[in-house]
């Protein structure tokens, strides 16, 4: 169980600027509520460039775990959400990774590292917040 004052990191990787802002904004609102409720600190990092996102992950900032990542599956530049998801899980086994896609869940096999999947419909930002809330709830219960 984390102590009060613990820091959580929320990572958003969505290359579509509109959807990125939308998701980030919604998650930020939830982060504020979570910070108030659990007296913890939630840091939100948002990326539209998958390369930049991978660099940030490799920088070792997420090794302390308590990471919730919302990754778009189709990120372009020959990098998909599963690549990012694998890297996050490699560096931080306890991280919770949610893949986002506008269509159904991409084919799941034993190598899939993500924990959940959200369809990018109008309810997706709220559902992401629900996952974030649940993750932190579980950490404190």
């Amino acid at each position, binding site marked *: 169980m984390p102590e009060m004052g613990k820091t959580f990191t929320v990572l958003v990787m969505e290359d579509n600027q*509109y959807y990125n802002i*939308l998701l980030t*904004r919604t998650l930020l609102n939830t982060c504020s509520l979570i910070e108030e409720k659990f007296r913890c600190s939630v840091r939100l990092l948002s990326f539209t460039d998958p390369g930049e996102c991978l660099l940030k992950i490799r920088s070792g900032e997420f090794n302390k775990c308590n990471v919730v990542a919302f990754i778009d599956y189709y990120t*372009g530049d020959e990098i998909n959400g599963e690549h990012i998801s694998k890297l996050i899980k490699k560096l931080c086994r306890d991280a919770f990774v949610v893949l986002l896609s506008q*269509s159904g869940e991409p084919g799941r096999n034993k190598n899939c590292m993500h924990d959940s999947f959200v369809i990018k*419909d109008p*309810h997706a930002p709220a559902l992401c917040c*629900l*996952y974030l*809330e649940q993750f932190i709830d579980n950490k404190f219960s």
Partner: protein
Amino acid sequence: MLLLYAASILSSSLTINFHSFEDTYALNPAMRKIPLQVKIGFLMFLAVLLLAATGYLSYINLSSVVSLIRVDTKPDQRLLSIREISKELEKAENSIRLYTLINDTKVLKPFYSIISNIDDKVNKLREECGDDTIMLQQVDTISTLIEDNIVIWKQMLSLNPNRQVMENLEGLSEMIDSVTVNNQKQEQEKGILGRVFGRDRKIELDEQELRDNISRIEQQDQEIKEKLLAREKQLAVTGSEIRDRFYDLISKMESEVSVSIEGKASNAGILAARFYRWLAMFAVSGALLAIAVVFITVRYVRKSDAYQIALAKSRDEAEKLVRIKEMFMANMSHEIRTPVTAISGFTEQLLHEPLNEKSLSTLRVIKSSSDHLVAIINDILDFSKLQDGKMALEQVNFRIKNIIEDVYVLFERDAVKNRTELSYSLDPRCPEVLVGDPYRLKQILINLVSNSVKFTKDGTILYSVKCISGDQDKTDLVIEVTDTGIGIEESKLKYIFEDFTQAEMSITRRYGGTGLGLSIVKKLVDLHNGSVECKSIRNQGTRITCIIPVKRGDEKNLVKETEMPLRIPSAMAGLKVLVVDDEEYNRLLFKTILERWQVKCHVAVNGAEAIEMVKTEKFDLLFMDIRMPGIDGLKVTQFIRNELKISAKEMPVICITAASEEDMKEKYTESGMDEFLSKPFTEEKLLKVVISALGGKPMSGKETKNPSDIDHSAVKEKIDLKNLYHISGGDEQFVKQMLVTFIETTERGLTEIREAFLSGHWQTLADLSHKLLPPCRHLGATELSRLLSDIEHKAGGRTDIGKLEGLIQRAEAEFGNISSLISEHIKKIT
């Protein structure tokens, strides 16, 4: 000694400081016995004592120094006397001199006064000199000289030249006067002519005689002057000698005073040094004591802090243990109840099947065993809650008769099995309706009757309910259960209400049970502020009496109990129900029961799946498990209610959990759940809950959306800004920014799509279309979304490539329309 003791305390404290917290007490057990208050008090007492002693000694020393100073400030009396004598002598001499000048006896008055007192003053000086022989000798010399002076002065007085001259002159004058008188007589005798023409008689004076007299007077005067001069000389010598003597005396006295001052200064120095020593000692002792007090206080505070930390740690650990215990209880409850639900549920389902008698008998045993297991779990959970003080009593109106009858129905069969006669009575004076917690009162009665039934064979059991005393509002409910069972030994009676206790171990082995029944009864009665008493005779029977205060109720306030039909209502057929549970056998049990009721049962294995299903399909009812991996049931329900905007009227949600309703009620109501189904459940219970949840809701058919529900934030039906405004929380600038971003990214996306089409990069084209879909869907740009989706599928599947251009053109045109609508909307945002 005290200081030494204080030092020993301090050193002990210092010694303690070097050891660890635990070692402290182990090394110095004597110190442990001295409480902090005593230590501080002792040190304070010591400080006060030290302060008093130092103050007293300082006072003594200071007084001595001050008295010395005071003595030195007084003038020497001998010196004063010398000065006075000297002044007197001077005055006397002046008086004599003045007399010699003016020859007035009046001026001699001080002289006579002085010489008459001079002896007294000299004697006084002699006395003042005390035993100082040298000074006495000096004083004697001065006395002799003064006497000589007085003799000289007297001689001088007698030799006063003026007086001699005056006497001579007077003689001469008398002589002249006598001559003048003779002449006048002769004149008178001559008559007038004789006086006018007569010759002057003066002329007749003897000139020689006058010359002689004058010469004699001059001679006498000269002699006197010489004598006076001689006396003056003598007087000067004696005066000088007297002065010398006086100076000697004074210098001697001054040297004496100087020596005395030196001595006193030396004494004062010694006293001052002593005083300084005391002050230094006081300062050092005070500082030591202060250090000791500070040290002990700091140590105490540190120790206190350590205790606080230890206490907080213990509290945290205790709280953690409580949480672990609660979690364990919840887990245990969940883990046991879940399979028991399946066992009990499927057994019940199998009992509906046409089976042979042996199978039915076996199934009944399984059912009974699972029911028994559930009862034990319930007992343990209740006990845990009672122990933690977490059980709250309800205050509702209820019929006591119903409770009594229910209990009878519950145990009648078991009593018959034991060939025991079970009966009950209800005091007619009891109010029909009471206010209290009927569930807990029933539990008390069940536990008591259950015990009696268990331990009574071939006997009788009577349980009665009476009401005694009380007033208009309150009454004491007396629940009495009497049996003719095995009874309890008197010595063991006091233990029977203790936790996990049965009168004998053999009872546990023979009759079974957890030993919690009576303990729960006691705790529940205590919770009601009542009392419980047990009387028993071994092998004769037992009587347990509980007195519980309750309020009188009102018929009008009774909760009307709906008579639930035990038959499955025909309206149930065709209902579309979603069951969300991660436990496969629970899902299967629901499916089995519901499908037998001809209900269309859909299942979801977790919350996320349930959300996806609810988003796309409409259900009449939803069963939601609470504890699930991923998102829990409460959050999923909240999401359905708040985000998907599916109301309780459209789709009631029934909470299914292993926890008790009391624990969950607040949470499930808050999250938007409507009913509660505790695991394990019976088919009857399930039916009751379903009917209660559906209430007056039409049981099938898709509802069309009410036109009034259409969101007014839709802009000419091309786009729908409802979601965006919802997320913005009223921040119009955010909406503006998002709309601008939407136009920019979609415009760019469409350009890239066009380029990809022209270059024949179909996968890129599909990916780009795919990318543009979520924002379009979010803004409710349905037509554009549809077109982009078509483009994605056609490009991705390389099918109907020929239609792609048309689709892209339509998408661009649609975007043009949307873009102008959005631009208009942006203009409205200030």
